[in-house]
Structures are given as structure tokens and as C-alpha cells.
């Protein structure tokens, strides 16, 4: 089977400081990969390089495109990369306000990606928006409200609906539950898990919260100081960590 996504020797530097270095992995269709590590370990840098938001200094980021097969998204033209960004790829930001248009209604937020790829029937767009609001447990009568009137958890669910409405093949998520109350986190995680299973989503999820990867990720990559120090199946890595740093990470969670 061809991987959906293939990363080879990726590196990104901020001057002399390492953002991330020598990262390689494959992601297969339907797989969810978790990236964990403490703050400053390079998770966001890596994710932003993968999603085309940052230009890596070294390496390749190959994606199995619909027409051209595996192609390096780093060297493809910007129009092509941005097209991927609004069709086959989706990006869920930690802060919903980075991923939503706060001045646009919930329906308009969800409809934007549809309109971006050419939907021109208001009734259809609205019906799809309402359907997706339902799938993320936002009531239909909120469709014309702006996200600024929503709670943090609702905003995050709206962001997810906005991203998934066009059926992307790969979803990037940066700390999707970060900054939310614990009870809200649990509900969001439940919802995400349901969607991942139901849609067979392929996803790369960055988090410092091991509970998130335990629930969502098939495989795990542990980062420290910009390097990947351990990879493996999630349960294996969490139950039997090999690297000293991972052991520390896991034990610190257990103590909580």
C-alpha cells in the first residue's frame, strides 16, 4: 500500500536554534498519528512544516495527490499547495479564533470551504452547514450566530465542522483540546474519536496531553529538543516506554 503522507529528513531552524531536525515517518490512509512532547520540543514547528504553513529548511513532505500520486508539497507551486490546504487537507488550530472567522456566522464559517471549491447554491450550502453543525453537536438554531457568542468548546467544535465539511483526506490538529476545561475536553475528545472512526480520517495530532493520544492515535511519535526520540504503536509506547524521556513523560502523567 502507498502511504498517504511521507516525511523524509525534515528540518527547520530558527537561526542557529533547532525547530525540529531529521524527522521522517510514513502515514497510511486511515491512520492517526500522535506527536507528543513537552512545550518547546518542536511539535508545532513540525506540524506547521507538514501543513505548508512554514517552509522547511531540509527534507521532503510527500502527499499522495489525487491526480499526480506522491508529490513533494514543499517544492510544488504555492497555488497547488494552497489548493491542497482547502481541499484534501484541513488544519485545526489550538485557538479557535485562529481557525474561524469571528465576524462570520457559524453557517458561513462551515460554508466557506464549500464556497471556496465552487459551491454556488445557497440552499445546499446552508443544508450542509446545518448537517455538520449537528454532527458536532451544535443546535441548528445557532447557525446564524457568530462564533464570538459561543463557548470555547463550541468554538472548537465549529472549527472541526468547518474543516471536515469538504471531506479532507488528511487533518492536522495542533493541541485541539488545549485551553479547554477538563470536562469540555472529554466531550470534544469523544466527538473527535467518533468522527475519526466514522469517516476513517487520517490525521496528525500534536498534543502534550497523553490522554488525547491514548484515545485517538494509532501511532505515536515522541519529541524532545526538536528530535524524534521514540516512535511506535500508541499502546506500546505508553505501556512500555523505551527512551528515558518517554518514561519520564509517561510517569509524570501517571502521577497526576
Amino acid at each position: 500500500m502507498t502511504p498517504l503522507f511521507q516525511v523524509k529528513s525534515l528540518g527547520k531552524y530558527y537561526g542557529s536554534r533547532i525547530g525540529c531536525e531529521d524527522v521522517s515517518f510514513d502515514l497510511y490512509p486511515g491512520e492517526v498519528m500522535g506527536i507528543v512532547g513537552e512545550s518547546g520540543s518542536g511539535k508545532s514547528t513540525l506540524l506547521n512544516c507538514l501543513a505548508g504553513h512554514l517552509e522547511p529548511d531540509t527534507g521532503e513532505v510527500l502527499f499522495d495527490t489525487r491526480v499526480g500520486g506522491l508529490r513533494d508539497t514543499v517544492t510544488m507551486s504555492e497555488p497547488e499547495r494552497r489548493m491542497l490546504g482547502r481541499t484534501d487537507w484541513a488544519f485545526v488550530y489550538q485557538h479557535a479564533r485562529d481557525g474561524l472567522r469571528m465576524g462570520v456566522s457559524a453557517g458561513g464559517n462551515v460554508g466557506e470551504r464549500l464556497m471556496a471549491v465552487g459551491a454556488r447554491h445557497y440552499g445546499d450550502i446552508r443544508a450542509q452547514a446545518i448537517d455538520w453543525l449537528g454532527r458536532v453537536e451544535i443546535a441548528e438554531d445557532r447557525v446564524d450566530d457568530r462564533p464570538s457568542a459561543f463557548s470555547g468548546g463550541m468554538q472548537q467544535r465549529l472549527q472541526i465542522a468547518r474543516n471536515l465539511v469538504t471531506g479532507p483526506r488528511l487533518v492536522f490538529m495542533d493541541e485541539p483540546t488545549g485551553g479547554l476545561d477538563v470536562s469540555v475536553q472529554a466531550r470534544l475528545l469523544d466527538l473527535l474519536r467518533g468522527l475519526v472512526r466514522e469517516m476513517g480520517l487520517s490525521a496528525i495530532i500534536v498534543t502534550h496531553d497523553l490522554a488525547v493520544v491514548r484515545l485517538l492515535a494509532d501511532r505515536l511519535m515522541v519529541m524532545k529538543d526538536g528530535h524524534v526520540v521514540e516512535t511506535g504503536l500508541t499502546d506500546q509506547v505508553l505501556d512500555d516506554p523505551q527512551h528515558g524521556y518517554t518514561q519520564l513523560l509517561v510517569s509524570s502523567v501517571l502521577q497526576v
Partner: protein
Amino acid sequence: MSDYNFAYLDEQTKRMIRRAILKGLAVPGYQVPFASREMPMPYGWGTGGVQVSAAVLVPEDVMKVIDQGADDTTNAVSIRKFFEKTAGVATTEHTRDADVIQTRHRIPEEPLREDQILVYQVPIPEPLRFLEPRETETRKMHALEEYGLMHVKLYEDISRHGAISTAYAYPVKVEGRYVMDPSPIPKFDNPKLEMAAVQLFGAGREQRIYALPPYTQVVSLDFEDFPFEASKADHACDLCGCNTSYLDEVIMDDAGGRMFVCSDTDFCRERRAAGHVGAQGAPYEEDAA
């Protein structure tokens, strides 16, 4: 003639503006940056349009200036006087007799010809601005034809008002490529944007010029189930009886008396001179002025 260089601007500046105009004509609907000059009038008074007019005027030209369709508003009068003084050009109120027409907020009712130039004063040239404030991003969106956001605006209109409520500055797509703000003309005027005359748009504060060559395809954005409509007040002009022209509603007295009149004052006067009389109109008499 006065001490001014012809049409106020120096020749070098006019050449720079003409280059921007030519580029705009070569790429219809594309906003060309230009180094806007200080003009002896405040921004918002049409400094962009004035600079474009100054760059295209020649001494033999006859100029007309309208504001909301009228030749006699303060803004129109002061710009007309400006060019009478600085360029010494003849001016007219008759659309038909003008070579260059500078306008704010209207397209004349009478169809323009290939030998005429219509210059628009533009306050905000960027149609994507209201949803995407970052200039770097809007430029990229134009370059890559990422125009989904324009429809988000129309979607919001319908979801809030049950119809596309945008009545002015209604966005258009030019030759299937650039999305353009037609300046705050009523959407009633949008179909007229496909015309024989050259159309030039100048935004002074924002330092942009754009253009539509004659007979350029200009399509108003819409949805399949909410098609564009060039609407106007469902009424005839009370002075000249015209039922196809764009109308202003005028409050007549404290008792709520009102009438609808053509916003294009030249058009209305010509019709009355030709004997047309509206519901509240008196037979036409030549003004003393």
C-alpha cells in the same frame, strides 16, 4: 490660463499615472498600485478620480462631473471648478457632450460611447477587505483566484436578511478572472458596467487604479438560487415619468410628503425638455441659469 501645470499635476506624475492606467486596461479588474499625490482637497473628495482625470484630460476635452448622478452638488461643482481653473477645459452638464466624465456613485443613464471616458472615484478598492483585513493575504487571494470569501459575504447577507442586501458596491467578476469593487454605485448600475466607453477607477487614499476596457465582460456575483437583480424603487420619476431610470427618494415637507426623481439630473432634464411629464411634474421651462 493660470500658473498651474495643465490639470495641476506635473508631467512626470501624469506619466506615472498613465502607466498605471495602461497596466489596468491590460489586466482588467486588477488593482494597480500607484504613488498617489497630495491633492488640494481632502481624501474622500475624490482625489483618486481627480488624479486619473488629470492624467487623461487633453486641452480640447469637455468635462462633466457628477456626484450621485447630479451635476450641482458641492463635490461635483468643486471638482468641475478645479479642472476649469487648472486645466482650462470646457465643462458641460450634458452626458452626450462630455469627453471625460468623472463620477461618484452613479453611471449616467444615457449609454456612453467609445470616444468617452468614465472616471470613478473609489473609496475602498479592495472587495475582499471587509472579511480579510490583511493586504498581503488579499493580494495572494487575487493572484490565486481564491474568491470563496466573496460568496461568504453574500451568504451572510442572505442568512441575515433573506436576500442579498448588498445594494451598493456590489462585487463583480471581470472577464472571468478578477473580482472587482465597482465603487459605491447602486447595483442597479452593475449591468451598465459592460459598456462602450473606457472606465477608469481611482482610489486616492488607498493608492490604487483599475480599469475596464470597452465591452469587457462584467458579471455580478450571486448564487444559483439567489440570482443577481438590478433593482430600483418600484416607481416612475415624478418629474419626467421615466420608469426605467434609477430614482432618488426626496422628502418634500414635514408632513411626510415625498417624491421619486431621477438621480441622473441631466437625463431627467432632457426628458422634460422633450415634453415628458411625471405625476408631480410641471411642464418644462428652461432655467434662467
